[in-house]
C-alpha cells in the first residue's frame, strides 16, 4: 500500500506496453501462504519464516534435511553449563552496505519478546537469559540452566540491522517500519521492494550476498491460497513454480508432459491421540449409555486400535501414494528417532481378540475429531481411519472439521480421540516429545501440547534429563529410549508421514525439496 505510491508511475508505463512478467531473470513463485508482516520477528508461522529467509539470515541454518549448519554464525560451542559461545561470520554486509556484527545479534534477540505477535517467536529465545558481546564477532548467550538444543532453537532466529530497525522495535511501530521497507534491511540473498498482505512480495537481488549472487535478478512471491488456482497459474505460465500440489492434481499431472512434479518428504506425521483421563467426554457404550471407565486407558484397547489400522491402504488409496506408513512421531533419520521400533502390523482379527480380552467383545462408540483443512489429505485420512476402526468393532463417528474450530476445542480438552499432523520443524526429538509426550507441567516448561493427559514417569524423567545433556550421543540415546517407550504405550499412534509436491514447468528449474517444505528462491536455479 505505502510503496505502491512510488511504483505506480512505472507500473503504468509498463502496463501500456503490456509486458509479460516472465523474463529469464525473474522467478515468480506461486505459494499457498505468505508472511503476516515484513517484520521477521512478528510470527513463527512457517510461511512467514519462509518469506523472511529471502531477506534475512539466521545464526544457525537448517539445511535441506533439517541438519543444522553454519549461517551467520560460523561455529558454536557450549563453554559451560549455561553459556553458549557463537562465533560470527566476518565480512557480511547488510542491504544498506553496513557491516553485520555482534551488536545486531544482541539487538535481534532482545527485540523478539517485545515485537512478537500471537504466533509467538518468543519460542526461539525462551531459553536465553542474556546476551554478552565479547568482541564484534563473538557473543556469549547465557541460558536459564542447561540448554542443549539452543542451536536448534536458533534456526528461525532472524538477524535484523540494529541501526535500521532501532526506531521500529516496539509493538506499535514495528509493523509500520518494516512494511514500509525502512527497517527491512537484512543480510539475506534478496532486497525488499514491496509487499501487500495476502498479495505479492517483490524482491530484488542483493549482489553482495555472502553465499554468492543468486540466479534471479528479481523474485516475485505470489500468494495464491486456492490449490487449483495455483496450479492453473503455473499451467498458464503466470508463475514458474508452485508449492503444495494436491494429491488429486498430482495424479493428473503424471499425464501432463508440460509440468514436472518434484516430490519431497514432509516433516508432518499424522498422529492419532487417545485421551488418558479417567473421565473422557466422547466415549460411550454402543447403546449410548456411559461406560464405567474410559476404555482408552486400557493398553489392550489401544493395541487393538493400532492393529485395526491398515497404513499401507491409507497411503495407497487415501493419499494416492504421497506418503509413507509411520511408526513413530518423527521421520526415521531425525535426531532421537528410534530405528528399532517395528512397523505396526495390520491384523483386524487380533484387534477383535484384544478388544474381547479387554472386556469389550462388542466394542464401544467413540467420536473421532480431525482437522480437514490444515494438511493435504487430513480429512480423507480421518474418514479412512473411522472406517477401519468401525470394522474392528469400535463404532467411530468421524468429525473432520476446520482447524479454526478443532484447535481451540482440543485445547479445552473436549475430545477423546483426535488426529492432527505434527511437524518436527527443528529436526530433533526434544521439540516433539517435549511438547507432546511429557506430562503437562508448566514448572519444567514441558508438555504444553499434551492434550490427552498422557503420563509415563520414565518418559518424563528421560525428557527432563535429556534436555540438559550436553553430550550429544548420550542425549540421542535418551530421546531414542523415550521415543520407544512412548510409541509402546500407544496413547499416541503414528499413522502416516506425508509427502509434499511442487510443480514446475517441465525442464525449467532445478531445486532440492526441503524437509520443512520451504520454497526458497536462492536455492532454485534455472535448469540450463
Amino acid at each position: 500500500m505505502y510503496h505502491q505510491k512510488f511504483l505506480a508511475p512505472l507500473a503504468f508505463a509498463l502496463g501500456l506496453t503490456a509486458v509479460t512478467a516472465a523474463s529469464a531473470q525473474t522467478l515468480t513463485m506461486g505459494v499457498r501462504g505468505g508472511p503476516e508482516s515484513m517484520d521477521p520477528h512478528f510470527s513463527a508461522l512457517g510461511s512467514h519464516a519462509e518469506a523472511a529467509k529471502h531477506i534475512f539470515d539466521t545464526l544457525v541454518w537448517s539445511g535441506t534435511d533439517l541438519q543444522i549448519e553454519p549461517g551467520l554464525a560460523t561455529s558454536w560451542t557450549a563453554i559451560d553449563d549455561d553459556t553458549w559461545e557463537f562465533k560470527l561470520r566476518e565480512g557480511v554486509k547488510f542491504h544498506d552496505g553496513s557491516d553485520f556484527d555482534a551488536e545486531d545479534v544482541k539487538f535481534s534477540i532482545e527485540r523478539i519478546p517485545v515485537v512478537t505477535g500471537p504466533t509467538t517467536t518468543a519460542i526461539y529465545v525462551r531459553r536465553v537469559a542474556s546476551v554478552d558481546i565479547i568482541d564484534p564477532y563473538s557473543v556469549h548467550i547465557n541460558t536459564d540452566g542447561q540448554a542443549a538444543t539452543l542451536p536448534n532453537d536458533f534456526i528461525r532466529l532472524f538477524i535484523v540491522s540494529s541501526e535500521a530497525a532501532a526506531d521500529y522495535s516496539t509493538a506499535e511501530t514495528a509493523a509500520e517500519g518494516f512494511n514500509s521497507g525502512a527497517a527491512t534491511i537484512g543480510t539475506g540473498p534478496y532486497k525488499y521492494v514491496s509487499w501487500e498482505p495476502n498479495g505479492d512480495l517483490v524482491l530484488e537481488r542483493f549482489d553482495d550476498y555472502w553465499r554468492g549472487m543468486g540466479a534471479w535478478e528479481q523474485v516475485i512471491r505470489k500468494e495464491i491460497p486456492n490449490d487449483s488456482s495455483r496450479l492453473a497459474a503455473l499451467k498458464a505460465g503466470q508463475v514458474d513454480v508452485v508449492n503444495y500440489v494436491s494429491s488429486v492434481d498430482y495424479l493428473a499431472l503424471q499425464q501432463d508432459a508440460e509440468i514436472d512434479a518434484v516430490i519431497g518428504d514432509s516433516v508432518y506425521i499424522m498422529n492419532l491421540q487417545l485421551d488418558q483421563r479417567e473421565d473422557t467426554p466422547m466415549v460411550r457404550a454402543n447403546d449410548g449409555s456411559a461406560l464405567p471407565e474410559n476404555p482408552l486407558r486400557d493398553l489392550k484397547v489401544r493395541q487393538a486400535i493400532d492393529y485395526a489400522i491398515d497404513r499401507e491402504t491409507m497411503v495407497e488409496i487415501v493419499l494416492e501414494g504421497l506418503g509413507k506408513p509411520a511408526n513413530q512421531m518423527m521421520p526415521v533419520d531425525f535426531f532421537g528417532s528410534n530405528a528399532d521400533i517395528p512397523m505396526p502390523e495390520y491384523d483386524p482379527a487380533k484387534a477383535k481378540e484384544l478388544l474381547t480380552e479387554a472386556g469389550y467383545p462388542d466394542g464401544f462408540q467413540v467420536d473421532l475429531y480431525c482437522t480437514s483443512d490444515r494438511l493435504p489429505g487430513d480429512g480423507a485420512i480421518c474418514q479412512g481411519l473411522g472406517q477401519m476402526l468401525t470394522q474392528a468393532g469400535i463404532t467411530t463417528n468421524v468429525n473432520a472439521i476446520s482447524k479454526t474450530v478443532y484447535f481451540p476445542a482440543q485445547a479445552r480438552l473436549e475430545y477423546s480421540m483426535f488426529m492432527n499432523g505434527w511437524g518436527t520443524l527443528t529436526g530433533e526429538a526434544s521439540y516433539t516429545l517435549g511438547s507432546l509426550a511429557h506430562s503437562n507441567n508448566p514448572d519444567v516448561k514441558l508438555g504444553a501440547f499434551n492434550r490427552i493427559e498422557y503420563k509415563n514417569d520414565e518418559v518424563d524423567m528421560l525428557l527432563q534429563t535429556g534436555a540438559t545433556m550436553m553430550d550429544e550421543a548420550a542425549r540421542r540415546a535418551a530421546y531414542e529410549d523415550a521415543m520407544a517407550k512412548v510409541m509402546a504405550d500407544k496413547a499416541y499412534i503414528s499413522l502416516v508421514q506425508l509427502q509434499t509436491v511442487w510443480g514446475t514447468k517441465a525442464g525449467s528449474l532445478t531445486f532440492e525439496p526441503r524437509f520443512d517444505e520451504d520454497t526458497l528462491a536462492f536455492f532454485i536455479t534455472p535448469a540450463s
Partner: protein
Amino acid sequence: MLGFIIQRFIQAVGVMAVMSVIVFFGVYAIGNPIDIVIPPDATQEIRLEAIRRLGLDQPLYQQYFTFVSNLLQGDLGRSFVYNMPVLELIGGRLPATLELVLISVICATVLGVSLGIFAGYRPDSWVSKTIMAVSVLGFSVPSFWVGLILILFFAVHLGWLPAGGRGDTVMIWGVAWSFPTLNGLSHIALPAINLALFKLAMMIRLARAGTREIMLTDTIKFARAAGLSEATILRRHLLKLISIPIITVFGLELGSTLAFAVVTETIFSWPGVGKLIIDSIAVLDRPVMVAYLILVAFLFVTINFVIDLVFALIDPRVRHGASA
C-alpha cells in the same frame, strides 16, 4: 426528508451495534484464537503471555467495552494477525474489490436489462428463447466451478488472459486502480465475468418479466395509439416502469457482491476484501471480522437509503406520496 434521514441513521447505528455484539460473542464462542496460531513448541508460560498481550485474558464484557470505547474514538482496533490498524488493512483492499464489483455489476445490469427487454418484447423469437435458456445456466451453475472452467479455458488452454491476481495499477486520487491499464483490464476480465454471470441471469429474468407485464397494459396501448414510435415507447415508458424492482435488486446485489465476493476472489487470487475476510475467519482474527461486518452493515443501510432516494426521483407516486 430530514426526519427520514435521521430515522435511517438511527436504524444504521442500531444494526451496527447488534452486529458487533453478535460477531464479538460468536467468535468468542468458537474459541481462543491463540490456540490456532500458537507454535507447537511454545511453553505454557509463553502461551499465557501471548493471550495476555492480545487482551484475551480479560472477561469478555470488558473486552467488548474496550472495543466500543476505542470505536467511539474512531479506532476499530488492530488486526491480531497483521498487527496493522484494521481500517488501513481493509482500506488497502477496498479499491480492488470496488473496481471488480462495479465493473461486473454494471456490465451485468446494462447487458441483462437490454437482453431481458428484448426477450420480453419478442418472447417468441428464437433469439429470446436462446437468451432465456442461457440465463438458466447462469442461475444454476455454481460460480466456483464456472470460475475454474474460465481459468482452464481462457488462461490455461487458450492462454489469452491471466489465470489470477491483479494487474498493473495507476494512482488516481492517491488510490491504486488497475482498470485504466490494459494489463489491469486483462486481469479483471475473468473474475468480472465470473461474478457477473449470476447477476446477468437475474437481470434478464427481471427485465423480461417486467416487460411482458407492462407491454399488455393500457399505458402502452395508449402510447401506441398516440403514434409514438416503438423505440420511444420502450425507452420512455417501459424502461421507467420496469426499473423499480431492477434498481432495488441492483442495490442489494451491489452490496452483497461488495461484501461477499469471497468465492471469486479466492479462485482468482484477487487481493480484495473478500479474501481478507475469509483468511481472517480461518484464524479467528476478531478485530478484522468485527470491523468488516460493521462496515458491511453500514454499507447496506447506506445503499438502501440511496435506493429510496432514487425511487423518489424516478417514480412520481413515491415523490408526491411523501410530500402529501
